[in-house]
């Protein structure tokens, strides 16, 4: 299926304002990986008023804990992890100018509202397609918390990484819209 937007990181307000739930995007440039343990550490630093190990304003965070890179490859499998676990941390990062999050699964009301307020988007990659997603990763290096292993923060260089817009700056939600079309029973 066709890609509607080619995005190059870092992203501006204008970049994300043009995106609508359901649009297909291809992301190129630098994205940072962070999942549960890394988010907890970032929040602790923010709470203590300390500097963060990665830039946040204009950046993209990919919720992923890749498998180890076999010899001759830059990364192992690298598909998205479930995003709701990062919901408690996301509004604080959005306030600091985070422009996009890549993951899979539903976000909380608070996160969706924070995306509208601070102009940011949530993108879904295909969960469980780790081998396919890794094709878009052309460079990877650990930039913080190496001791966390798969949960370390990595700087990934990506080339046309595919994703779909789930939540846009208007508060639309692709999961709700998509499921509504095919639901034959009462909602959850």
């Amino acid at each position, binding site marked *: 299926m066709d890609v509607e937007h080619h995005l190059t990181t870092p992203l501006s307000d204008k970049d994300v304002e043009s995106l609508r739930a359901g649009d297909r995007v291809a992301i190129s440039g630098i994205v940072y990986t962070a999942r549960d343990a890394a988010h907890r550490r970032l929040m602790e630093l923010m709470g203590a008023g300390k500097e963060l190990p990665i830039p946040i304003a204009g950046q993209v965070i990919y919720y992923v804990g890749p498998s180890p890179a076999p010899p001759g490859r830059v990364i*192992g499998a690298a598909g998205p992890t479930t995003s709701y676990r990062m919901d408690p941390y996301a509004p604080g990062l959005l306030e600091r100018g985070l422009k996009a999050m890549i993951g*899979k699964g539903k976000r909380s009301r608070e996160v969706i509202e924070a995306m509208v307020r601070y102009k940011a988007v949530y993108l879904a990659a295909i969960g469980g397609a780790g*081998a396919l997603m890794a094709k878009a990763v052309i460079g990877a290096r650990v930039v913080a918390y190496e001791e966390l292993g798969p949960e370390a923060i990595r700087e990934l260089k990506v080339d046309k990484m595919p994703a779909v817009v789930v939540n846009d700056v208007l508060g639309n939600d692709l999961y709700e819209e998509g499921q509504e079309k095919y639901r034959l*029973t009462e909602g959850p």
Partner: protein
Amino acid sequence: MREIRAESIVNAVSDAAIRANLELGRDVMEALERAVGLEESEVGRDILKKLLENARIAREERIPICQDTGVAVLFVELGREARVIGDLYQALEEGVRKGYEQGFLRKSVCDPFTRKNTGDNTPVIVHLSLVPGDRLRIWMVPKGGGSENMSRLFMLPPSAGWAGVKEKVVQTVAEAGPNPCPPTIIGVGIGGDFEQSAILAKKSLLRPLGSPNPDPRLVPMEEELLTDVNRTGVGPQGLGGRVTSLAVHILMMPCHIASLPLAVNIQCHASRHVEIVL
């Protein structure tokens, strides 16, 4: 007494851990291919084709299907006429340690509170039973966190009956939505007690997709539940569609007169299980 050396168990488990994570089973590939034909959503069909492509890349390029190579769950059946020379539990653990290291699989096990990674994907989860015969049969099942987190257990009142069971299964799938990486396989354990229902639910996932339930009573029940969960509209990746689940598997056993235990173990589309016989 037939003797089985611990060393051969280590090597077999290590090999199974790697194969399970790199090679999606033929049964799952075929179920995904069937799903492409059933799915009405264009986005859904596109996702299903990408999942098939992903599995082909993983197998050919020798990288995991999914980065979440799971907690290692091992269902083990030891024949009463077989004797393990050495320590069976240690051999299973050593096999997982070796496979996860040599196969470049992700180590995904940590302390519940410090969240410090144990570094070698142990401890493993072992369900051991003694059976007739002189063989050692092991199912290596790497279980991912995303689908496990969406699994639920209900201690229903007996009055809830089949209608109550159906309601809870559908509710679990609908609430999970996109989180467990649909299209999923739903493992349902009915009866037993609190922990037995959960073990039944997980064990039901070992049955190859597309093969009928050996208990004829459960065949129409599985069909009815599959129809119902696919009416939720969740669809592939939760983006809407007809194929929310590829199959529903049920295992059932008698329970306490006061109880109707129900466990719903959700399995993502990367349903990985390798069977080895020593």
